[in-house]
């Protein structure tokens, strides 16, 4: 890479288009740029880096836009770097379009325009742009080409930091290996996490297996509980059925008992009726004589019809004999009546015992007529017979029922007991069914849980997977270790060369070459000074001044620069501000050797014409950055020689 031109357009203090020519003549690698502080020296240094690598992260790109041009409204800020690389002409422009919004400047995204041999390159993706630039000069390595003299002392600081190793690694251009190491670290970490995860999973799996087993036991227990409940329910149902059967028997017997009771009542009624009938019969028996005599009495009655009573005969005789022919009733006795009297008297007979009997029977008959008695008698007889017949049948039925009922006197107690048993059985069945339902729900839940856990368990990784993962991790570890060892080997190999180169440069730059032999890089990547007496001392101990440190750091940077074997310009900002005259002279004399193109940005206080006199034959051009007299906010570039 050989710089040709740098064009700055509205970039920081450079208002409008400003250009600097970096082309060098044969064997004149130096370009000197002089500027006072706060004029644009470091800006020019930054402009080259911005053009190649873009804006650093967290930098507001508006700060790159010139303050004057910002006030003018819309516009464009850009930096163009023109150079040769690998025999080809490159033109790289990084630009920022800006506009005004609500009184503020708004910068658009930074754009890259790259042309090779005048042909625009299609670099839309950031990766493509980075790749394009990295192929020219990797950003990591650029720190050994574009450096601030005041900042390089970090390499000599105590305690030693990673800077030395990092610098060597970067300069080696082993970004691929470093990335590989980083990626392998990440993969190793991931594999470690995965293995841990697997092991944790295995531990959980063991617990899960135990849980599944316990769930299986619970399921079995629940199942056997349900079966037991089923058995108990069946038993209770059986008891219930038996009770029902028993109770149905009892109900049949009870019916019979009731029937018997009714019959017994009937029997009692009949007996009562029979007794009453008999009593009545006994009463009736008084009339029995009359009844028995009824035929005779009837005969006697016939007889009595033709006879007249004694008094009647006497009376009739007297009346017939009475001449007055007047009746006792004072009525006259007519011949007809007389004739009737006579006839009646003729028929009359003397009163006999029979007549007396007849009279008595008449009395009886008057009390109870024979016909009625007779009818009543036969009715009673018939009724009694009916009663007795009914009684006989009722008794028979009672006897039969009694036989059927048997001697179950404790029927009600037994029935109550059975009913209690039945109620208990019903209660048990309800209870069992309720319990069974609950158990079945629990069973279903546990069963599902068990099945789910078992399925999960089946899906879990086996031991083989753990072994595989462990092997993968070990393999990755081995790979990582090998990669690290390869990097260390490369760095170690390079370290010797860098040490050698740094020692050579140091011996040229130091103000006391008779005291030192060179620089050594320790295994811990600390820079040490080797004295003539063979003593090896840390830089911070041997050369605590900032100037001496800067010389050692410059030696180290120069060594790295040479070691990269890249063809690139060296741009040094503020190279000698801390150096004493001897160091300064040595460093200035060294500049033509450091690279084939060296751009030195200095301020008048650190270097002057006298300092450059020893190397004036190596200077191609000299430039001056100064404020524009017409615009104090703008810097202009002037060529001085």
């Amino acid at each position, binding site marked *: 890479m050989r710089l040709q031109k740098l064009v700055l357009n509205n970039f920081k203090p450079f208002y409008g288009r400003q250009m600097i020519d970096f082309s060098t003549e044969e064997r004149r690698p130096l370009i000197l740029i002089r500027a006072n502080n706060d004029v644009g020296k470091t800006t020019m240094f930054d402009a080259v880096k911005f053009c190649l690598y873009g804006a650093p992260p967290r930098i507001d790109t508006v700060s790159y836009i010139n303050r004057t041009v910002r006030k003018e409204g819309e516009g464009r800020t850009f930096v163009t770097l023109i150079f040769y690389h690998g025999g080809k002409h490159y033109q790289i422009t990084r630009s920022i379009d800006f506009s005004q919004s609500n009184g503020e400047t708004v910068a658009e995204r930074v754009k890259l325009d790259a042309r090779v041999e005048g042909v625009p390159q299609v670099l839309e*993706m950031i*990766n*493509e742009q*980075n*790749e394009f630039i*990295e*192929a020219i000069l990797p950003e990591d390595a650029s720190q050994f080409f574009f450096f601030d003299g005041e900042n390089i002392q970090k390499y000599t600081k105590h305690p030693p930091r990673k800077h030395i190793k990092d610098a060597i690694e970067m300069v*080696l*251009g*082993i*970004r*691929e*290996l470093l*990335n*590989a190491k980083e*990626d*392998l670290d*990440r*993969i190793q970490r*991931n*594999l470690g996490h995965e293995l841990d995860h697997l092991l944790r999973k295995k531990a959980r799996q063991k617990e899960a297996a135990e849980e599944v087993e316990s769930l299986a036991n619970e399921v079995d227990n629940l199942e056997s509980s349900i079966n037991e409940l089923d058995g108990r329910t069946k038993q209770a149902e059986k008891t219930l059925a038996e009770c029902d059967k028993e109770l149905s028997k009892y109900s049949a017997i009870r019916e019979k008992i009731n029937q018997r009771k009714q019959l017994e009542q009937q029997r009692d009624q009949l007996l009562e009726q029979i007794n009453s009938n008999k009593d009545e019969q006994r009463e009736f028996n008084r009339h029995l004589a009359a009844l028995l005599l009824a035929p005779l009495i009837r005969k006697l009655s016939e007889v009595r019809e033709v006879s007249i009573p004694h008094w009647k005969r006497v009376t009739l005789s007297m009346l017939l004999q009475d001449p007055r022919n007047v009746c006792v009733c004072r009525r006259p006795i007519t011949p007809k009546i007389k004739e009737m009297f006579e006839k009646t008297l003729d028929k009359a007979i003397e009163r006999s015992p029979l007549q007396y009997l007849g009279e008595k029977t008449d009395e009886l008959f008057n009390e109870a007529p024979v016909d009625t008695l007779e009818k009543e008698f036969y009715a009673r007889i018939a009724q009694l017979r009916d009663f007795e017949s009914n009684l006989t049948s009722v008794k028979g039925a009672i006897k039969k029922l009694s036989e059927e009922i048997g001697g179950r006197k404790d029927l009600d107690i037994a029935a109550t007991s059975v009913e209690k048993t039945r109620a208990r059985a019903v209660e048990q069945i309800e209870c069992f069914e309720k319990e069974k339902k609950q158990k079945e729900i629990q069973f279903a839940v546990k069963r599902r849980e068990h099945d789910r856990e078992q399925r999960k368990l089946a899906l879990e990784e086996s031991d083989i997977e753990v072994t595989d993962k462990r*092997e*993968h991790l*070990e*393999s*990755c570890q*081995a*790979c*990582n*270790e*090998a*990669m690290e*060892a*390869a990097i260390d*080997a*490369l760095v170690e*190999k390079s370290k010797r060369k860098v040490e050698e180169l740094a020692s050579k440069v140091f011996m040229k730059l130091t103000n006391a070459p008779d005291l030192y032999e060179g620089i050594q890089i320790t295994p811990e990547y600390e820079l040490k000074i080797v004295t003539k007496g063979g003593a090896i001392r840390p830089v911070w101990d041997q050369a605590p001044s900032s100037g001496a440190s800067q010389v050692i750091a410059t030696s180290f940077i120069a060594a790295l620069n040479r070691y990269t*074997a890249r063809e690139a310009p060296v741009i040094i900002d503020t190279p000698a501000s801390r150096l004493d005259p001897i160091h300064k002279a040595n460093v200035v004399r060294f500049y033509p050797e450091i690279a084939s193109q060296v751009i030195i940005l200095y301020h008048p206080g650190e270097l002057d014409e006298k300092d450059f006199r020893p190397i004036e034959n190596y200077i191609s051009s000299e430039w001056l950055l100064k404020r524009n007299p017409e615009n104090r906010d703008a810097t202009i570039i002037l060529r001085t020689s």
Partner: protein
Amino acid sequence: MRKMRREIEEILRKMEDKHNLNKNVLSQIYDEEANVVFMGKRRNILKRVRRIAIQARRRKSETAETGA
């Protein structure tokens, strides 16, 4: 091939032997990473490197054969 590639290759080969890795494992990883650095193919790099790395170690039988 990059300037230092040959040198790097040699060291990688030595490390493969020293760490009992399969031949060209480190070179393969190096190539994948080189694609990232120079071609910007960052996508899936971890997956690719992982695949190579987990099969990097020589099996015992292979080691025995190589030893024999």
